[in-house]
């Protein structure tokens, strides 16, 4: 006898069984969740890898905050560009944009496609526009109320929009880009007069050629670069980006894993019930001559078949959902991502099978330990499985799953610890909530009283259902609160006259005119802070990196040029924590350092820091360390010099200003009057960040939809497990005279009460979590969200009520005699 065939035959005959359906459903949900993120993550990683050199636009890229004039000898093809931000204006509309001024050779690898209209594929052509023209990102057009062919102003020059950038190397857009891109000619930059001393500019040098000359050039160049200059090979550049992406991807995958783990709970419950209902079958098969190995084959084949089917269906759903996710995160690039790969299919299938193994193997192992004697003594339980065996089997499978997704031991520990803690807290809260339900039950009558009594009678099931659903609702609610609340709360606590615009790149000769303009229009501005850009190079005479432990040498303060300013007056939102504020002292070069930077770089009062400013090296002693209120909307600086050392250097200035809503029309006039000054609209910037935030949160909420579905699967699984007992109770009640309507009302009462409780618990947890996040992390005021206490219990009541009713309604319809026969 082929027990594989027998197993499949029995499975086919039992396909209508509730347990198999729940098991399959839970597996589809769990695998669907991880497949969704797996597919998208794989497509993004392959997009970055496969594009390779075309991603960078070259074989080698050197970026520097200053022009590089001397290079090692080479025979490579070259191109150069500079990148900076500036205002682009049309009429009264103006928008911050990222400008890349390119030469005729750009890009050396890959292509730029320019279209006549947004959303067209365009044609491949050099990125350098014709004289007097620019190419713009499609998103810039509606912001300026412009179209291709219109004239716009950059600095002191007007340009014609000659086309829309449909594609460029390395651009993913969506959540990865904030300021729209503009291509202009490198030789047009000077006439705009946008660039001032102190302007933040990136100089980009590209190289292309054969592998050997590239390697030789790279080796010769590296020692000549400082810490603010970067040499990126096409492979490294991609790896750097991949590295950043892989970390983010790992956390998103762990989010998806939570759904799979919740599905494991539903699978375990369904598998346990299935085993219970098949003890008689297993005993009978043993009577008929089936050995342990044969039974193992039979049931393993059934489980494997379900596992493969559920995982395949989950993968199919994941493939569909990842498309939606891609559109949410990367609306511009989604269509250009590589096709679905095979690797995530395998990963999702293995995840599903591991989850299934972890959840159902203990039940299966008990099933094949059933004695044939059970056919004569039905009360005989299977030989008990040692608890340690159960836990080892399940635990190993689930730990392998978590370890695979987490990627390193530390994250596994954190994830398992956090999840265990959360589950423990939820179980405790569920128990307490049920105790509260007892009070309500005592005060109620009729079907409601009976329904609530059911909830309390099946305490274990109710705890599991409550815990699972509360977890799902809580996470969904918390994300919704973070999305809607965090930035809004931060904005609400700003004073009404807080600055809402930054004026950047104010040339020295413009300062008086700017001050006069602002005064004339009765606009309140902060002080003007002069700014030069400099690089931190040494501490107490030694190179700064050498004074730091290896893990701190990648500190952002060392990898880029800092904005250095000087003032005698301690800025309003700064507090001296150590040392003394330098004031007007000019006798020696003194600086004040921000406390966070001081902590990261092990700086104390008395240390001497060296800075490279242009071709000058300056040293200054730290005379104070101060805290900075970074969200004060004022210009804030990591390093402030005492007056005297930097005064003679060419500098631009920065200021912040409050422009009331009623005076917004002043701004276009300001931009026209001072075209070289960048006007940063903080409201718009924050709105952009909010929009990006909302996109990311929306994508995660989509994933949490799987979690809600998994929660419902747990509810259904536990209800199915108690169905026999419920049916017996229903038979007894109907025999004693209870009408169908009474039974139906009691069922509805039970499930609606469960859903309401889950919603209330989730609301409480979400409020507490949100309060902690707001107060502890962001120092924002705590506030309640009344809508949550209505929305979540309603959602819980609807979801749990409906799924519970659909699962159990038939017990109200079957005539008592038929039920008695079925139960016997």
């Amino acid at each position, binding site marked *: *006898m082929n027990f594989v065939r*027998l197993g499949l*035959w029995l499975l086919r005959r039992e396909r209508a069984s509730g347990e198999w359906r729940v098991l399959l459903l839970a597996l589809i949900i769990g695998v669907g969740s991880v497949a969704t993120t797996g597919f998208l993550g794989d497509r993004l990683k392959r997009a970055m890898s496969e594009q390779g050199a075309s991603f960078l636009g070259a074989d080698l890229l050197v970026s520097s905050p200053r022009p590089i004039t001397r290079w090692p000898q080479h025979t490579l093809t070259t191109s150069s560009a500079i990148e900076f931000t500036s205002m682009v204006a049309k009429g009264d509309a103006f928008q911050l944009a990222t400008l890349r001024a390119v030469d005729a050779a750009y890009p050396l690898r890959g292509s730029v496609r320019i279209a006549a209209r947004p959303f067209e594929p365009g044609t491949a052509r050099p990125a350098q526009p014709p004289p007097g023209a620019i190419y713009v990102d499609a998103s810039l057009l509606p912001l300026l109320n412009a179209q291709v062919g219109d004239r716009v102003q950059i600095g002191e020059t007007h340009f014609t929009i000659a086309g829309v950038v449909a594609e460029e190397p390395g651009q993913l857009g969506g959540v990865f880009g904030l300021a729209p891109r503009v291509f202009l000619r490198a030789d047009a930059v000077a006439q705009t007069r946008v660039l001032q001393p102190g302007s933040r500019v990136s100089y980009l040098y590209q190289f292309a050629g054969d592998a050997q000359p590239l390697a030789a050039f790279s080796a010769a160049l590296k020692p000549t670069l400082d810490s603010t200059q970067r040499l990126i090979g096409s492979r490294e550049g991609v790896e750097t980006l991949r590295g950043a992406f892989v970390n983010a991807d790992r956390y998103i995958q762990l989010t998806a894993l939570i759904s799979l783990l919740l599905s494991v709970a539903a699978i375990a419950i369904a598998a346990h019930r299935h085993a219970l209902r098949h003890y008689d079958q297993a005993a009978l098969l043993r009577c*008929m*001559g089936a050995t*342990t190995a044969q039974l193992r084959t039979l049931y393993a084949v059934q489980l494997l078949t379900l596992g493969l089917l559920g995982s395949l269906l989950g993968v199919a759903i994941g493939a569909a959902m990842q498309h939606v996710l891609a559109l949410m995160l990367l609306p511009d690039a989604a269509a250009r991502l590589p096709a679905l790969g095979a690797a995530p299919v395998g990963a999702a299938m293995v995840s599903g099978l591991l989850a299934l193994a972890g959840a159902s193997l203990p039940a299966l192992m008990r099933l094949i330990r059933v004695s044939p004697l059970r056919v004569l003594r039905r009360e005989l339980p299977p030989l008990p499985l040692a608890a340690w065996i159960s836990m080892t089997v399940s635990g190993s499978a689930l730990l392998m799953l978590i370890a695979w997704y987490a990627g390193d031991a530390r994250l596994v520990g954190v994830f398992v610890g956090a999840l265990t803690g959360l589950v423990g807290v939820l179980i405790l809260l569920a128990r307490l909530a049920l105790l509260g339900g007892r009070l309500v039950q005592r005060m109620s009558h009729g079907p409601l009283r009976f329904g609530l009594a059911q909830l309390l009678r099946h305490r274990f099931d109710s705890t599991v259902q409550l815990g699972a659903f509360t977890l799902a609702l809580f996470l969904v609610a918390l994300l919704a609160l973070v999305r809607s609340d965090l930035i809004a709360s931060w904005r609400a606590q700003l004073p009404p006259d807080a600055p809402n615009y930054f004026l950047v790149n104010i040339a020295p000769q413009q300062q008086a005119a700017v001050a006069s303009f602002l005064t004339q229009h009765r606009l309140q501005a902060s002080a003007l802070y002069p700014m030069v850009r400099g690089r931190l190079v040494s501490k107490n005479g030694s190179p700064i990196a050498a004074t730091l432990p290896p893990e701190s040498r990648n500190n952002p303060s060392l990898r880029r040029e800092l904005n250095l300013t000087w003032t005698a007056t301690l800025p309003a939102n700064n507090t001296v924590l150590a040392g003394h504020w330098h004031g007007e002292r000019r006798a020696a070069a003194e600086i004040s350092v921000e406390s966070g930077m001081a902590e990261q770089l092990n700086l104390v009062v008395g240390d001497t820091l060296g800075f490279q400013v242009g071709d000058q090296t300056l040293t200054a002693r730290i005379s104070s360390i101060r805290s900075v209120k970074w969200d004060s909307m004022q210009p804030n600086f990591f390093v402030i010099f005492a007056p005297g050392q930097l005064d003679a250097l060419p500098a631009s200035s920065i200021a912040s200003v409050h422009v009331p809503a009623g005076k917004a029309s002043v701004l276009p006039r300001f931009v026209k009057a001072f075209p070289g000054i960048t006007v940063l609209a903080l409201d718009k910037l924050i709105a952009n960040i909010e929009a990006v935030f909302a996109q990311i949160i929306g994508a995660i909420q989509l994933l949490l939809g799987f979690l809600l579905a998994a929660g419902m699967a747990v509810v259904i699984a536990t209800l199915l497990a108690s169905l026999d007992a419920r049916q017996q109770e229903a038979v007894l009640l109907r025999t004693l005279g209870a009408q169908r309507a009474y039974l139906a009302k009691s069922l509805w009462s039970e499930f609606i009460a469960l859903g309401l409780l889950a919603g209330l618990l989730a609301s409480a947890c979400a409020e507490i979590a949100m309060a902690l996040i707001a107060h502890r992390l962001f120092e924002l005021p705590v506030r309640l969200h009344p809508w949550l206490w209505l929305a979540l219990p309603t959602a819980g009541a609807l979801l749990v009520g409906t799924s519970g009713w659909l699962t159990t309604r038939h017990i109200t319809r079957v005539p008592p005699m038929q039920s008695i026969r079925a139960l016997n």
Partner: protein
Amino acid sequence: MTPPDSAQFPVVAAHALSQRVNTADGSLVILSEVELAVKAGETLAITGASGSGKSTLLGLLAGLDQPSSGELFLLGQNLNALDEDARARLRAGRIGFVFQSFQLLPALTALENILLPLELAGRSDAHARATHWLTRVGLAARAGHTPRQLSGGEQQRIALARAFATDPEIVFADEPTGNLDADTGARIIELLFELNASAHTTLILVTHDEALAARCQRRIHLVAGRVA
């Protein structure tokens, strides 16, 4: 004791068979020093009051359990020397069972329930035999019905067909009429003995039913775990 030659010796033999279980109050004796031998083709009834050890004895004789002490031979094999899997292999296709609660698989149809032991025994003519036996018990028209759609008597007829379908050498029956009314029970008894006679099987059954016990060639009566 050396294994007997099955041609000359009983198909089932028990020597000094005892069964004890451990309870919270100490060891409980279910069976004590049972001596028994059943020849091929014989029909044996095991009777006794509730708790006398009848079903325990049946389970031991069928190889479904192992005795605490004593020796047991089934179809020429010493069961004490066999583990559970070996005993299962011994049962496959050679022993049929009929139970008080019918023990039909609820997801399978009447025909499929009869098919099951035939498939397990690897019979190439499984389907034909199952159809033959279904007709034999008068339920050919109910082939596609599941147990839920059958009465108690019909279910037990299916169970009888299942027990005899593999041409077993022995059929063990545990209270085959226990869940049936008197009339239905009488019809089942008739059918059981008719099938047994035509198949030439050895029949060992446990029963409270005096009419059923009287139909058997031999009976043993258990009192407190001992043969009276």
